[in-house]
């Protein structure tokens, strides 16, 4: 029998208890509308004309034949955008809505059409005639770095997209003093974001000067700002209405894709709503991907396994445009000094432009690459020293700082809480580590092994410029409440958390609050859903806004009771005098009194987050110093694998335990799905299954049949253990949940394969063929 777990944390009315998500009913009945589910009267369908070359100059685009096709209403090319360029930050604006002079990856968009139906739009694209001059290309960073290699961007010499060189402490001296120094090279695969909902958008202009945009964008204030600049509109006239989002994971649904420009431009030209929906083929061949990365890591340790120094060299394939690569390469380096104490650290990062689709952020952004390399190498070191993997981790783990104290790493990353030791201990205990490690490893053609890992992730990510999240709490006269947020729930469960925090503060129930998803005409501005920032920062905004509304209500209550506002409290929808709870009134009566008593009040609470901006300063990307996170989560994981030694097929078993320090689990089941999902879909997937196969810029497996995804029949039934550290910088102690387990899963699985078979798979994914050959090589070596 399956029990519904009902673990309860803390002593709150709403928070810390399992709560059904506020949008679950809409989703489970099919009522939740995603971008592609919308249509408007008089709507046209758009389609993108794409390049058949990975690298080519555009000599001419002739659209004259298209315009004569019945049913075609408008055509647009890059020229219509008047030289507009955009990018992740001011200095990296290197991309046009549609290429005008040169395409830099296969199927890059060069034009778009709007027609009365999808078939006509498709046919119209075939009639656009483009004169091309194909150019030689570069298809991995090692080709791109060759002297005299073709340039992806003529103004970017040597194809260098990002380069960092950081050094903290004295790495060379530490290596010289080390008992053991190891150098290994690892590789992470080129991966799809993997969400099931492809990009889709519908846009229209209610008049010449106002744009409405409804798209599958996880960070709607990105298109708000970008489209304002693109169409030369004041921000006040750009209205982004957010539908439900079928997951994000960074990149494509933050940043713009061709359809996000095509729909507004074609709608402007025709005066009609225009809808574009990508196919999964469009998504998998042209949208953003996780960077493939080559990581050479050199680590020195003492005889008893204490880390002395690490030198990491990371080489990445950035793809055609800069996108978020500067942040990626920062993240790869910055948290190397966690979750273990590392006194000396040096980092060289090189990210190259290539003629592949652009790489960008993805769940576990940056840290996943380097944590994989470092945590597998740590097992290699432990083996050489004769230490147990759990023992070496416990020895090196950062201690949880005492209350009021802050731990500082050598690169000036700060944390007030660190539960990694407790995570490691709890996982080892739950999985019966010592026993299982010694257990029989071979059963016929199957070999079993178990692996361990630990990881960290930044939460409440803060970048330069605008960081604050905001909220508006509108008290309706009948006692119901509207919650207006600029933050976006793309599946992580933040809408529920925002409502729960507001309910907790106001002393009412979760179901009394109705959350309004982003509509930039009404909701407050917000940076976006990335870097595990929403719960931590929008959560603080929720608390502040609800406190502001509560303060106004308590003033009214105090007047009614003839006491001071601080003497009144609200709990379970009852308003009462603290010293004499008999003197009370219902929540509804208080609200009605406030609204109706002449001249009548309008209660609106406002609040925004401040934590990300002021507490510990901002990170310096080029020097690698400082905090990208408001706080940091910690994770430990043990995974068992079953290896078919005849075929090389590896699968995770149900012996899988993750302990996660999210500070405080505001909604425990949501933390569990986040941790289980992050570990499986973006972690185990990288370790065992997913990789785009490429041939000169062409993606050979752009569908979910040839590109293997993690499915239910192989899903480990991962047990999640909550580790509570109550971080002072998170709302109610909270930190991130999910990106940490994206980082802990790959090393745990690879270490488990080694435990089962004795082979190290250093290039992900450990697909059957790779494991088969590694086992064969090992057998041949043993026979000699």
């Amino acid at each position: 029998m399956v029990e519904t777990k009902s673990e309860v944390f803390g002593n709150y009315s709403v928070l810390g208890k399992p709560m059904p998500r506020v949008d679950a009913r809409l989703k489970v009945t099919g009522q939740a509308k995603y971008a592609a589910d919308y249509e408007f009267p008089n709507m046209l369908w758009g389609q993108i004309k794409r390049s058949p070359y990975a690298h080519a100059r555009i000599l001419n685009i002739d659209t004259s034949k298209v315009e004569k096709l019945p049913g075609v209403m408008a055509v647009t090319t890059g020229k219509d955008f008047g030289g507009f360029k955009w990018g992740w930050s001011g200095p990296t604006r290197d991309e046009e809505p549609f290429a005008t002079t040169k395409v830099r990856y296969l199927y890059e968009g060069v034009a778009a059409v709007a027609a009365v139906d999808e078939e006509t739009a498709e046919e119209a694209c075939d009639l656009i005639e483009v004169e091309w001059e194909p150019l030689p290309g570069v298809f991995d960073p090692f080709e791109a770095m060759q002297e005299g290699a073709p340039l992806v961007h003529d103004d970017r010499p040597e194809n260098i997209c990002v380069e960092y060189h950081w050094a903290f402490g004295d790495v060379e001296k530490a290596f010289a003093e080390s008992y053991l120094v190891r150098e290994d090279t690892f590789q992470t695969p080129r991966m799809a974001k993997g969400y099931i909902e492809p990009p889709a958008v519908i846009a229209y202009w209610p008049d010449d000067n106002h744009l409405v945009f409804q798209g599958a964008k996880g960070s709607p204030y990105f298109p708000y700002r970008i489209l304002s600049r693109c169409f030369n509109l004041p921000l006040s006239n750009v209205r982004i209405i957010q539908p439900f989002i079928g997951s994000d994971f960074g990149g494509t649904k933050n940043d713009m894709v061709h359809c996000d420009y095509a729909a507004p431009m074609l709608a402007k030209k025709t005066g009609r709503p225009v809808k574009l929906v990508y196919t999964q083929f469009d998504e998998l061949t042209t949208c953003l991907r996780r960077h493939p990365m080559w990581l050479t890591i050199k680590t020195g340790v003492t005889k008893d396994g204490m880390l002395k120094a690490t030198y990491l060299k990371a080489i990445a394939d950035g793809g055609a445009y800069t996108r978020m690569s500067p942040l990626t390469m920062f993240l790869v380096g910055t948290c190397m000094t966690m979750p273990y104490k590392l006194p000396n650290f040096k980092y060289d990062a090189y990210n190259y432009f290539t003629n592949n689709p652009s790489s960008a952020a993805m769940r576990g952004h940056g840290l996943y690459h380097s944590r994989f390399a470092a945590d597998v190498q740590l097992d290699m070191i432990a083996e050489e020293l004769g230490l147990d993997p759990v023992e070496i981790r416990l020895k090196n783990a950062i201690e949880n700082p005492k209350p009021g104290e802050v731990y500082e790493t050598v690169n000036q990353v700060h944390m007030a809480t660190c539960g990694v030791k407790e995570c490691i201990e709890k996982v080892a205990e739950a999985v019966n580590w010592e026993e299982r490690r010694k257990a029989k490893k071979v059963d016929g053609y199957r070999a079993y092994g178990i692996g361990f890992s630990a990881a960290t992730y930044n939460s409440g990510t803060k970048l330069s410029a605008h960081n604050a999240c905001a909220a508006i709490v509108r008290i309706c006269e009948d006692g119901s409440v509207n919650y207006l947020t600029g933050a976006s729930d793309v599946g992580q469960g933040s809408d529920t958390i925002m409502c729960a925090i507001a309910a907790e503060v106001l002393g009412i129930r979760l179901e009394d609050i109705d959350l309004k998803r982003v509509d930039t005409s009404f909701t407050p501005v917000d940076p976006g859903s990335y870097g595990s920032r929403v719960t931590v920062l929008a959560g603080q905004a929720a608390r502040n806004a609800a406190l502001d509304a509560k303060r106004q209500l308590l003033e009214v209550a105090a007047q009614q009771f003839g006491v001071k506002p601080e003497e009144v409290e609200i709990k379970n929808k009852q308003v009462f005098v603290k010293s004499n709870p008999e003197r009370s009134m219902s929540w509804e009566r208080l609200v009605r009194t406030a609204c109706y008593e002449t001249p009548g009040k309008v209660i609106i609470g406002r609040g925004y987050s401040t934590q990300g901006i002021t507490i510990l300063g901002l990170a310096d990307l080029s020097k690698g110093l400082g905090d990208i996170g408001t706080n940091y989560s910690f994770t430990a994981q043990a995974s068992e694998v079953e290896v078919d030694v005849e075929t090389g097929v590896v699968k995770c078993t149900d012996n899988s335990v993750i302990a996660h320090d999210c500070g405080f689990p505001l909604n425990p089941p949501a933390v569990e799905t986040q941790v289980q999902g992050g570990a499986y879909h973006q972690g185990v997937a990288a370790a065992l299954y997913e990789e785009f196969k490429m041939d000169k810029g062409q993606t050979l497996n752009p569908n979910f049949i040839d590109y293997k995804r993690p499915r239910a029949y192989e899903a480990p039934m991962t047990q999640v253990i909550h580790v509570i550290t109550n971080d002072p910088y998170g709302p109610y102690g909270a930190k991130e949940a999910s990106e940490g387990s994206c980082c802990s899963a790959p090393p745990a699985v690879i270490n488990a394969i080694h435990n089962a078979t004795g082979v190290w798979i250093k290039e992900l994914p450990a697909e059957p063929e790779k494991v088969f050959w590694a086992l064969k090589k090992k057998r041949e070596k043993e026979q000699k």
Partner: protein
Amino acid sequence: MKGEPRELKFTVNGKPYELKVKPNTLLVDILRKNLKLTGTKIGCLDSACGACTVNIDGKAVRSCSVLALQVNNREVITIEGVANGDKLHPIQEAMVEHGAIECGFCTPGMVMSARALLDENPSPSREEVREAIQGNLCADEGYVKYIEAIEIAAERMRGGK
């Protein structure tokens, strides 16, 4: 594209429909575009993701892999037809209560696969549950709570509490 429209008679969520459809029209397009039943999602059109799963005569079928004319005289249930008015189906109820749902894009297909399973096999083993939803890709929640929710629903439907 060239074929002449033909007569299609079928029921969707208990309601009879008579339509003229082109022979190359997919069932998923009829459901979403003609009948406006957008709870059935399109993820891949390759029969690989399961977001478009519906029940045809009680079986879980991907509506992107079926021509509309193939369901002539058949009974189709979509996600919109699963709950009984305001009362959720036990599978839906368990998924909501157990916290199985994240972004929700795969959820309708997941419910339809589970519904077909439990109608045919009220006491599935865990392996049978996994097998029933192996064609339904999720991208964010890890399947654990989906599997558990289907088991909880099975138990409730058998008359447990």
